[in-house]
């Protein structure tokens, strides 16, 4: 007759699994790591359309949240009379050649990807600055558009972290 094995608690069993299979990694508690091509695709998609990177990685809730929040910030900015900035040459000429503040504003706005290019193609936010600045909400609009782009840089970084398996 077989010898009866003593009963083990759940904790003892869980701890004994890695000891029994030292050559195997237990993967069930680790975030998934995506292949390099999928990581790159997620980053590019996240830049082009806010939330699309998370959508590509199967994080549907976060994708919707980022799309509505960042897209919403950009639309609010445009509707308040914000301007789409492009680096302009400094006047009077400087060592940097470009007007540094317009370079920074451009960098902030370009973070929202297609929102910037589609708006530009549709002629939204392209009113010359002296004319646009006459609107009392001009600065509010710019601030919301900068917010949208800068937040999307964070979202791109988050999508990369998820794709690289550093985050759930």
């Amino acid at each position, binding site marked *: 007759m077989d010898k009866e094995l003593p009963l083990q608690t759940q904790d003892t069993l869980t701890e004994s699994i890695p000891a029994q299979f030292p050559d195997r990694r237990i993967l069930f508690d680790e975030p998934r790591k995506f292949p390099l091509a999928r990581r790159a695709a997620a980053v590019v998609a996240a830049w082009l359309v806010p939330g699309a990177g998370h959508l590509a990685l199967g994080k549907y809730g*976060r994708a919707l*949240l*980022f799309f509505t*929040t*960042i897209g*919403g*910030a950009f639309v*609010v900015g445009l509707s308040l009379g914000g301007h789409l900035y492009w680096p302009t040459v400094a006047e009077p000429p400087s060592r940097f050649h470009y007007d540094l503040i317009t370079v920074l504003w451009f960098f902030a706005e370009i973070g929202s990807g297609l929102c910037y290019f589609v708006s530009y193609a549709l002629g939204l936010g392209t009113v010359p600055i002296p004319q646009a600045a006459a609107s009392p909400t001009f600065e*509010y609009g710019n*601030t*919301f558009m900068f*917010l949208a782009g800068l*937040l999307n840089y*964070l*979202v791109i*970084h*988050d999508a990369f*972290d998820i794709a690289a398996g550093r*985050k*759930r």
Partner: protein
Amino acid sequence: MHILMMSLYAAMAAVVLATVDPKSETNRERVLHGLKVFGSFLGIGLLLSWVLFPIPW
């Protein structure tokens, strides 16, 4: 108008910052973090406006 815009800005920033926060593991932690960020934006904004109000230029 200014308070409304400031609140909208704070809410949008708080939602994204709370969602990408690497230290928050559960939804409850994310919501709490978001509320803290929202409150900080509004609180610091109001404090700065109060401090800067007497400056004439």
